[in-house]
């Protein structure tokens, strides 16, 4: 009896001790795994910070050197390295666990230094560097990068002697743009960012130049319309307009201020909601989307292209040329470019999506057209198509084409060029020869896969 009693409390005790032990062991395992993961993650962040510091330091040195070099060759080498360093620094900065609200301006500075160096590099390649203005700008960028370098070294120093931890950012910052967020290192970035905000704007010939943000739409003509007119206009543009009712008319500011007209199908079956954006100035169609389910494809690409062309014609776009298409998930997207005096204007594009199940026009995207389209003062070609053809690389085979096209060479610059297609082995290329000075303006590689044709 006594023996039995003893065993009775001994068993749970042993089980309990084992359980506690197992739990403890498991917990410790979890703890070490977590520690290791956190260290690994932190190390990545430290690497990004140290790389950033090194790249910014190199930028400072390169900028100062660019102020004292004399020959275009030496300058080209410096600009090349500066471009790479700045882009690498920008990539490093964006890997730090700091919200973009605190790195945006710094990131922009790094981008613009790189972009500016790149545009100078291209100018140097063409043998056209305007020295005085450029020297002033480089000098200013040098002083700014020196400030940034100093701030980063300060940050690095405090991390090195343990006054600052990057992992604070990992733990607390993980709530996205969350509440007050982390204190320590973030505050430092905030200081840097505040300082950068006082930097003046930088205007030059490159895609990230400040003046491009203020571009206005050239294709907007006509007087301002009101909501009711927008509502009527939207219904005119939609196929089977009698089946739709206007649910809501909203507004959008942005590059092209527009009314957003939301249409709902009356019978509710077979079609999704359609949203049409009508520009406030002139009542032009800016874009349209329809998210309905797509059934089994029954239309050929050719038939769908004809449909898209007819639709554009019904809107009054008669001189558009189909230039490109893409298909995916039962939907085809056709790109049309405007023409002027038989010259293709590639910047002025309208895209039309057609459902391949029943040929319905699902969407339109005309903002590229509205941003760019205007009557151009086209230069007279100085060289003939035959002369342009002779400029092509002699290794190219099966050369075709030779029509005139206006192509975008930077966001606000266009060039008149002859368009040729040619082949090297099995790769297909489009090559554009400047019709005025005969230089090679652009080379595009054509990639064809089941989804369509891609040019890079």
């Amino acid at each position, binding site marked *: 009896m006594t023996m039995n009693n003893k065993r009775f409390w001994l068993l749970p005790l042993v089980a309990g001790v084992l359980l506690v032990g197992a739990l403890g062991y498991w917990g410790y395992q979890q703890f070490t795994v977590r520690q290791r993961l956190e260290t690994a993650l932190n190390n990545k962040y430290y690497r990004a910070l140290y790389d950033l510091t090194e790249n910014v330091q190199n930028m400072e040195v390169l900028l100062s050197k660019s102020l004292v070099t004399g020959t275009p060759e030496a300058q080209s080498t410096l600009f090349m390295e500066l471009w790479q360093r700045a882009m690498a620094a920008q990539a490093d900065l964006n890997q730090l666990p700091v919200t973009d609200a605190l790195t945006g301006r710094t990131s922009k500075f790094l981008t613009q230094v790189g972009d500016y160096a790149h545009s100078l590099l291209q100018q140097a390649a063409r043998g056209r560097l305007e020295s005085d203005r450029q020297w002033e700008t480089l000098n200013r960028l040098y002083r700014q990068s020196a400030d940034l370098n100093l701030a980063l070294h300060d940050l690095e120093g405090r991390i090195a002697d343990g006054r600052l931890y990057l992992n604070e950012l990992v733990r607390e910052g993980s709530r996205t743009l969350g509440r007050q967020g982390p204190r320590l290192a973030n505050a430092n970035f905030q200081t840097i960012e505040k300082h950068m905000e006082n930097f003046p704007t930088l205007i030059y010939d490159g895609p*990230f130049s400040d003046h491009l943000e203020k571009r206005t739409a050239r294709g907007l003509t006509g007087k301002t319309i009101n909501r009711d007119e927008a509502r009527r206009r939207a219904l005119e543009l939609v196929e089977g307009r009698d089946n739709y009712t206007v649910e809501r008319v909203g507004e959008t500011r942005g590059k092209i201020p527009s009314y957003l007209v939301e249409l709902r199908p009356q019978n509710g079956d077979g079609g999704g909601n359609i949203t049409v954006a009508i520009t406030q100035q002139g009542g032009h169609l800016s874009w349209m989307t329809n998210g309905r389910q797509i059934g089994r494809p029954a239309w050929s690409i050719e038939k769908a292209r004809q449909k898209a062309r007819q639709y554009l014609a019904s809107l009054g776009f008669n001189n558009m040329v189909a*230039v490109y298409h893409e298909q995916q998930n039962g939907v085809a997207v056709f790109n049309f470019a405007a023409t002027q005096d038989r010259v293709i204007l590639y*910047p002025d594009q309208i895209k039309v999506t057609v459902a391949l199940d029943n040929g319905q026009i699902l969407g339109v995207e005309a903002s590229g057209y509205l941003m760019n389209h205007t009557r151009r003062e086209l230069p007279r070609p100085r060289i003939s198509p035959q002369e342009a053809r002779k400029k092509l690389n002699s290794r190219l085979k099966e050369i075709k084409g030779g029509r005139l096209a206006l192509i975008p060479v930077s966001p606000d610059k266009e060039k008149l060029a002859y368009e040729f297609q040619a082949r090297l082995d099995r790769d*297909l290329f489009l090559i554009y020869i400047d019709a005025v000075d005969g230089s090679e303006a652009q080379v595009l590689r054509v990639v064809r*896969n089941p989804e369509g044709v891609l040019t890079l």
Partner: protein
Amino acid sequence: MKLALVSFRRSALLLLALVVLATGLVVTAGQSPAQERTLYWGLSGDDVIRVQQRLLDWGFYDGPVDGFYGSKTQQAVVDFQLNNGLVPDGVVGPNTWAALGFPPAPATAPPPEPPAVSRGVTNRDAVYLLARVIEGEAADEPFEGKVAVGAVILNRTRSAAFPHSLAGVIFQPHAFESVSNGQYNRPVSEESLRAAMLAMSGWDPTGGSLYFWNPAKPVNPWIWTRNIVTQIGRHVFAR
């Protein structure tokens, strides 16, 4: 892929140029090759679509017909192989192709030479990556709200203040909640894929916005200082 991303980096200029092509070049593609290639996990393409469609028709597969050979497709292939006395290795080789009703073409058929080969250059994986984030961020939003989220991500690649590649923008720490918490790993709907394709083709319902947020959720007060462009569905968009 790398090429496609480089073109993003090199700004709006190349994006505009991306779509420059002559009418004469455009022909209907998508002919089946003489010999089917062997398919396995991780591949993508038109042939994967055909396998997925067939498996879906025959009741082995219930995922999206998206042309991506993911784990779901693999499981469906294994099930099909077990049902048809094949080695259940999850790989679509010649035997499995034949069992699926796609017999190899006779050897006499001349191999058609494609006019321009892709050699693996495609923007398809970029579209898919974009679609995953759209699904994670805007699964319950209307279609144009999905396109809008895709457009914001692409606008960021063209902004000086953000990374200049698609992956750089998407995986920037704390940039997108669904990427931070892994929700973007959910299966992608067809609607999100289509929205991603439209955003890549230039649709931008946001008028060049760089930020979006749901005003019903707690957000950093800083964000309200941005220039608000519009509201689509439950998201506010701002420049």
